[in-house]
């Protein structure tokens, strides 16, 4: 049995409830109810004008899971992640290591690399679309090529991935710099006495001690990349022949739920995405104990 609360404790508890009430009510209305509602809708057929949800059981799931379009979109999303996550992280780590040294112009470089982070992806994507333009684009003009950067199904996904890398380097870099600054300097001093400097110190001291930061970035970037939408939406025209080989799973969701107005089908696509992300998260949690170095 719990002891009875004193008057002061009761008063404190009342304040506590008062203070968390707005957030908790908001979470229930904005997140927890929608969470269950989306699950429910994925079992429903949306009537015309979004009215009259009819319970249809697994019909949507059957449709979503048997369409090759769904699996292609999932594969497209994974391919995007395969470019954005590793490249975005390796380049960012290199820059972070350089900027963590005593070097002139440090804050200018940091400002430049971080710049895409404060730009609307819609605008960024428009600019890159123009750079990639087959006839008039800067890239083809400079290299004297005629590459269809964003309309050749074989390379369009790479081109989109490059925009993703360009956009995220600065953010990853700043997180890495934060991680690097937490490594105590005496580790390096001790290592240099043992003759480990430069590259060897990087692999034997920096990388292991940085692994919690690296793991965190990998985890958040994988989930970020799997929910990519803006770049595909802004860069790929609806008439672009490469679209089926590039559109992400969230793009597909947007098309069905809001362009076609089929909320039930859209909800089912979201469920596929959420389940996929949960599996990935679970695997990453299992991996964490093995790859992250703990002092």
């Amino acid at each position, binding site marked *: 049995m719990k002891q009875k609360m004193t008057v002061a404790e009761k*008063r*404190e*508890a009342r*304040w*506590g*409830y008062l*203070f*968390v009430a*707005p*957030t*908790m009510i*908001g*979470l229930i*209305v*904005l997140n*927890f*109810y929608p*969470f269950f*509602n*989306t699950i429910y*809708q994925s079992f429903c057929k949306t009537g015309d004008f979004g009215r009259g949800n009819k319970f249809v059981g697994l019909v949507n799931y059957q449709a979503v899971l048997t369409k090759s379009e769904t699996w292609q979109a999932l594969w497209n999303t994974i391919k995007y992640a395969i470019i954005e996550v590793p490249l975005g992280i390796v380049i960012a780590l*290199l*820059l972070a290591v*350089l*900027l963590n040294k005593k*070097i002139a112009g440090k*804050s200018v*470089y940091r400002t*430049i690399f*971080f*710049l895409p982070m*404060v*730009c*609307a992806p*819609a*605008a960024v994507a*428009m*600019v*890159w679309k*123009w*750079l990639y*333009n087959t*006839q008039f684009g*800067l890239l083809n*003009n400079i290299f004297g090529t005629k590459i269809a950067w964003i309309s050749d199904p074989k390379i369009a996904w790479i081109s989109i991935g490059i925009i993703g890398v360009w956009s995220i*380097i600065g*953010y990853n870099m700043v997180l890495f710099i*934060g991680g690097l600054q937490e490594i105590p300097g005496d580790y390096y001093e001790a290592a240099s006495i043992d003759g480990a400097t430069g590259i060897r110190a990087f692999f034997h001291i920096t990388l292991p001690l940085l692994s919690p930061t690296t793991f*965190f970035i990998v985890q958040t970037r994988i989930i970020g990349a799997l*929910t990519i*939408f*803006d770049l595909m939406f802004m860069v790929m025209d609806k008439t672009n022949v490469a679209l089926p080989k590039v559109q992400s799973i*969230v793009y597909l969701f947007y098309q069905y739920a*809001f362009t076609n107005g089929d*909320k039930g089908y859209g*909800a089912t696509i*979201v469920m596929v*995405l*959420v389940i996929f992300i949960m599996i990935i*998260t679970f695997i990453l949690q299992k991996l964490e104990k093995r790859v992250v170095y703990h002092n």
Partner: protein
Amino acid sequence: MEGYAAKQRNIKIVMHVVLIIMSFIMLVPFAWMILTALKTNQEAISVSPFYILPHSGWHWENFGKVWQSYNFITLYKNTLLMIFWRVVCAVLTATMAGYAFGRLKFPGRNFLFSLILVQMMIPAQIFIIPQYLMVSKLGMLNSMFGLVFPGLVTAFGTYLLKTGYEGLPKDLEEAAMIDGCNVGQRFLFIMMPLTQSSMVSLGIFTAVFAFKDLMWPMIVCTNADTTTLSAGLAKMQGQYGSEYPTMMAAATLAVLPMIVIYVIFQKQFVEGIATSGGKL
């Protein structure tokens, strides 16, 4: 020792070369955006001769044209208001809840806080359809309320502020308690001012992500005069996608204000976004 100094100097040079090349890659899209915005359409699409700079004068009037024909004042106003309300709501609710979770004892606290953590793990896409249907049923499509709606509260912000309050020393509050301050006074006058940096971080984080969001404004605000810069750009591209100088002028106008604010407050920006992200 001279060899050592020379080696160090060479390393520095190589480092600068790498950094300068990367800076160049990062800046080229911005430079090309602005240069194209200042050209005529003819120049923008001329391949041979290929012009890097505008050669028939700098066409600043492109900006004026875009400004008027796309109603940029409305887009700025909508975006600014949306950011304002989202920041106010997020900081207000999160700082209150953060204080309660971090400093007060009440039955069910751990359970309620675990709900906050659960929300942070769920991909936000799962909330969108019902959120849209709610806004739609309330008759609030194409309104400021609709734009702000998903950002009324923030689980992540609550988590961030809770961490901030937990880090504060205990004796401060105890002294105030002896002086007869109630919980509300302790929160308002003693504890809250000490978490300013966390609040600024959350504010900047909220503002930047509200500014960048594309899907939500496209869904709830389909009218050109109720939507935000991001969604407005998407609309423009659909209509005038092949008028490159116009599109680049629009893109420039959309990103410039945030870039200027960022360059002025860059320390707070980088810290705000990074510490927020870093603790997520």
